[in-house]
């Protein structure tokens, strides 16, 4: 009995077998995600067909049939009855106008400096690990706007012209888009925070005024706000006082987006537990230090996605200024269609495609950056 082996002891580890081919690698992934059932397979095929039917003509138009170089419309005219591809030569020829509007050619260097300063200050500000954040922020939020203002509009001291005046009517294209978007963003954030605090204030009149302000601006379309600032604002001013058209639009856009910003910030404020307020008060902090040091940093961090969404909305909404007769990027592109030098059947498509690409890059970039910052600033415990 004792010499009969009743059990077996494995002296070496069983070899690790690779998982079945059908569950790993490309094949396994495809089986699981694309062809797991008959209905799924049908969906895959339909999906690929839809994607192909959109992407193929697009590539054909934007790349294959596209004309890259040329002097005038002759280059882009479709040959032998075909519809013709994108006319990138036209975009190339018009690029200065799309970027600077009708800004005088001799003065364009000033716009370039503003663009360069903007990028130079924004990149380190947006880069989480870059040093000198505070200096950078002050430069960007205080010094840069002043410098940019004088660079763009001109500077005359005591009769001597240091920088020739360029009227805002000559600004256009991306310049106007960026000026409106950046000013709107920078100005609406503090105003929005103030309104949000006002809405949560215990003082009844301040609270009521904030609520009325917010609900009013949120309840009307931006177009009517722009009409109001361009038609009605001059009526409000005393005789002889006139506002620059761009400034009027800026005021309208800022007030409008401040109301949206206020609601976003309010959401963040509501999410801060009461203990934080009590802790701050226990430390003897007064209202503003408490807000500045304890509450707002946490609240704003919570609502970064919302703030960026408002920014993106504002950036897209700058296009509406073309309705009150200003030429932002879209307005400039739209107005270039009347030029007979480049009028071809594909001109409109090319222009809109170019505008869409520019706006997409800006907006998508902002949304990606907000996701990045959200993860970066996430200090709590993620579930």
């Amino acid at each position: 009995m004792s010499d009969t082996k009743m059990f077996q002891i494995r002296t070496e580890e069983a070899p690790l077998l690779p998982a079945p081919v059908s569950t790993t690698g490309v094949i396994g992934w495809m089986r699981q995600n694309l062809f797991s059932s008959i209905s799924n397979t049908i969906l895959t095929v339909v999906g690929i067909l839809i994607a192909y039917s959109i992407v193929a003509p697009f590539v054909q138009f934007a790349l294959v049939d596209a004309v890259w170089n040329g002097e005038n419309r002759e280059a882009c005219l479709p040959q032998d009855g075909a519809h013709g591809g994108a006319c990138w030569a036209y975009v190339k020829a018009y690029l200065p106008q799309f970027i600077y509007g009708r800004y005088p050619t001799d003065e364009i260097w000033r716009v370039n400096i503003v663009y360069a300063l903007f990028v130079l200050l924004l990149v380190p500000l947006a880069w989480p690990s870059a040093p000198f954040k505070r200096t950078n922020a002050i430069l960007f939020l205080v010094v840069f706007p002043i410098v940019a203002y004088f660079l763009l509009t001109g500077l005359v001291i005591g009769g001597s012209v240091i920088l020739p005046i360029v009227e805002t009517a000559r600004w256009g294209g991306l310049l106007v888009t960026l000026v409106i978007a950046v000013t709107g963003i920078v100005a609406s954030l503090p105003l929005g925070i103030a309104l949000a605090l006002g809405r949560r204030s215990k003082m009844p009149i301040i609270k009521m005024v904030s609520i009325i302000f917010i609900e009013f601006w949120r309840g009307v379309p931006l177009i009517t706000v722009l009409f109001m600032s361009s038609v009605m604002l001059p009526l409000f001013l005393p005789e002889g006082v006139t506002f620059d058209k761009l400034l009027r639009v800026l005021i309208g856009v800022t007030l409008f987006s401040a109301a949206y910003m206020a609601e976003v910030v309010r959401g963040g404020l509501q999410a801060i537990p009461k203990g934080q307020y009590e802790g701050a008060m226990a430390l003897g902090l007064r209202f503003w230090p408490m807000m500045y040091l304890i509450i707002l940093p946490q609240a704003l961090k919570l609502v970064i996605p919302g703030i960026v969404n408002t920014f993106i909305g504002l950036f897209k909404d700058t296009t509406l200024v073309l309705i009150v007769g200003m030429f932002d990027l879209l307005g400039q592109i739209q107005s270039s269609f009347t030029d007979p030098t480049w009028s071809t059947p594909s001109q409109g498509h090319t222009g809109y495609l170019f505008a869409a690409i520019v706006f997409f890059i800006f907006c998508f970039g902002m949304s990606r950056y907000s996701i990045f910052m959200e993860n970066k600033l996430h200090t709590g415990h993620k579930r």
Partner: protein
Amino acid sequence: MEQDSAGAPARASLLNDPKARGLFYQLVLIVALVTLGYVIVTNTIANLERQNIASGWGFLENTAGFGIIQSLFPYSETSSYGTALLVGLFNTILVAVVGIFFATIFGFVIGIARLSNNWVISRLAYCYVELVRNVPLLLQIFFWYFAVLRAVPGKREKWSLFDTIHLNIGGLRLPKPIWEPGSHMIGIALIVAIIASIVISRWAHKRQDATGQQFPMFWTAVGLIVGLPVLAYLVMGMPMYWEHPNFVETGPILRRGFELNVGINVIPEFLALTAALAIYTAAFIAEIVRAGIQAVSHGQTEAAHALGLRNGPTLRLVVIPQAMRVIIPPLTSQYLNLTKNSSLAVAIAFPDLVSVGGTVLNQTGQAIEIIGIWMGVYLSLSLLTSAFMNWYNQRMALVER
């Protein structure tokens, strides 16, 4: 806080008293607002007098003198400004209703597609959402109006679908229902069917609560709502027919094309505007729907399955009602956004409230009144919507402890 020698807290100075400070701030705010209001009103009155513009609503009675390319009720150049604005208002409502209808359908389909297990489908939906959300709406409207709808056949040609729906540069042509005497019975039958469905559904609910027996409510309702009007149509001797758009293909070249006032003509401005609005808003709705469905914990599905519910009823009775709680409030704001965004119609000259109002403003110079009308209309829409939302929220909110 200072303490006097006796150790009792000193009366805080007026400067440090939060109540007094609060009162002071509010007083400052009131004074500032009143001053601002006074300055604005006096300036405006002075400016209006100088420009010889009489303020008031009298201009609404004057003859408008301009044509409107689409109106839901009779309007001519001899109608008054008031009528013109009313035409604009109804066009706004029409665009909003049609836009909301399509945006909801697209949005739900895309939102569910984004959650699909199928990689191709979910990627497609993702690309749609990102592309559409990150391009300005106005650009999309221009694209549809100037790029797409200008690429369709000209006035003397057409594209047809099933030989009933036609598209050319003049817009979309659809058959028009012509109601003959007796056709009102169809409408009455429809109303009766809807009321009957509601009554039966109440009864079915009660019976299920009492006995647990289910009643095939859905098919009954479909049968009633489709069946009764059809029955009425047959009984009344078919008092309705379709008037097909008439396309003249022969004869002198200038006479060719669609005959005027035959069938329904949907103008290209309307098509471009609603297409852009629906497609744009659908991208936002899709994200809301996705977030809503993801907010329902998977345990709910598992519990429903454990109770023996199949996939369909689980979705319909367990998941969707809970997801709707999360979906409805932001969905309502999207509806409102769509309505407000329909004011972009002015860019392609579709006669909505803002567009018509802009024309009136240019002709009369009554800036304050017109902008007042705009803001009043959109504000009341907003306030109505938020009132509805609050009511719905209260009804649907999760009742805890």
